[in-house]
């Protein structure tokens, strides 16, 4: 298994080869936008999603 195959398997991407090309191509413009986020230093910013350990029925 080459490195690309290993990466796909690790990420759970179960696509046939011809689908992979189409999906990767379609993802490229979105990947470029997502990549912009990596330039931001948000080290001290808590994500907007916050874990709540209480069951829904017991939350205030």
């Amino acid at each position, binding site marked *: 298994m080459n490195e690309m195959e290993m990466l796909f398997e690790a*990420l759970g991407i179960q696509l046939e080869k011809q689908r992979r090309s189409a999906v990767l191509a379609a993802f490229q413009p979105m990947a470029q936008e997502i990549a912009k*986020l990596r330039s931001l230093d948000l080290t001290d910013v*808590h*994500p907007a999603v916050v874990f709540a350990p209480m069951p829904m029925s017991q939350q205030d």
Partner: protein
Amino acid sequence: MRENPITRPIAELSADLRLGKLTSPDLVENALDRIATLDRKLESFVCLAEDARDQAAVADREIAQGRWRGPLHGVPVAVKDNYLTADMPSHAGTDAPGVHFARQDSTVVAKLREAGAVIIGKTRMHEFAWGNVTPPSKNPWDLSRVPGGSSGGSGAAVAARLVPVAMGSDTGGSIRIPAALCGTVGLKPTFGRVSRAGIVPHSWSLDHAGPLSYTVADSVYALNAISGHDPKDPGSARTDVPDFTAALGQPITDLRVGICRNHMFDSNQPDVDAAIDAAIRFYRDAGARLVEFELPILAFGLGAIFAIELSSSTAYHSRNLASGAVTGFTEDVRTLVEMGRLVTGPDYLKAEQLRRVLIDDLAKVFADVDVILGPTCPLTAWPIGEWTVRVGAQDESVLAASWRLTYPWNLAGLPAISLPCGFDSAGLPIGLQLASRPFDEMTLIRAADAYERGHRWKEMHPKV
């Protein structure tokens, strides 16, 4: 009985129903006749309730016995095909084999029934709420053009005056975009204001449920009926629900109207800019104070919503991916669902961090501003089958262009409304978008209602 009563707003219908000048069965029959005649061209409905006449008869009996439930009592209402219903099948816009949904009422449908509404049918949507086109539905203003999406069926049905209210869902703009392109009101409440329980999920932290309607007041009546905490929706807010009708007919002389000069006005069709400039002058002349500001963080918003939306949708469709049902999806939706696995965990969480920054930056804006005003879409309805359009100085994908101005309010969960504010040179509707603080739908409604009362756009509807 006046001709085509179903084309009248709910306030008028409700008054006549309560006084016995109009019956719910007559109203439902009128709606069904118009759907039978006009929807052959529009294809806005995917299913009609077999018991619509029975629902109307029950409503009529209750009203006659003095058991009036409120403005929606006896009024036909449609719901988007991703709202589960006990009496009609749900498909979430998909024909894929192996995908099934329960026959049970979503919380919103149950609340509408409790309010006495007649659930007359289900409207077409773009498959699994991905996409802004909603094939094969047509725009009632020009049948060669799209109604927008993903709640395009609801937009077309309301614009054509088939029903006064149709429910939609909005993850990046899917209530507001069809509202703008079809010339209706479309309201996305604050995240958590309206339960999503029983609505097929697209993205858990971005999905909102809300109405499309003839008028601002019609959306308000629906909002009153459907709001409130629901323990079945983990995102449902435990927040008091005011009577939103108290915001109707109120002055706006103290209103501070914010105009975000970056992002919202970067690249719009000239007719859109002209209509929004006129709306700004209206608010200024009505005594509101205009406050210009910028939100630099919006430069990163598209990447954030891509990361969140793609990964959420793929997570939701894990079962459909594992079973192979996804191979039955339309090509564009299949590709979107498959690519979510390419979004990494750290990128997703970075997007959620970006979201926190946006929320905090907006809170600072709202210290000086009550509502944020701008266009809903940078363009008007585009021809069916076209995927690229010239907006401003550049060619742009219609999908990228259409949601550019709406998705920020999904990222931030703000309440936002689109209402008609004019037409372009081809006679196609233009939408004005207002957004307000979280859970401040009262100010949003006050601002929107004042604009609507100051214009006659709501009286204009297409001849299908």
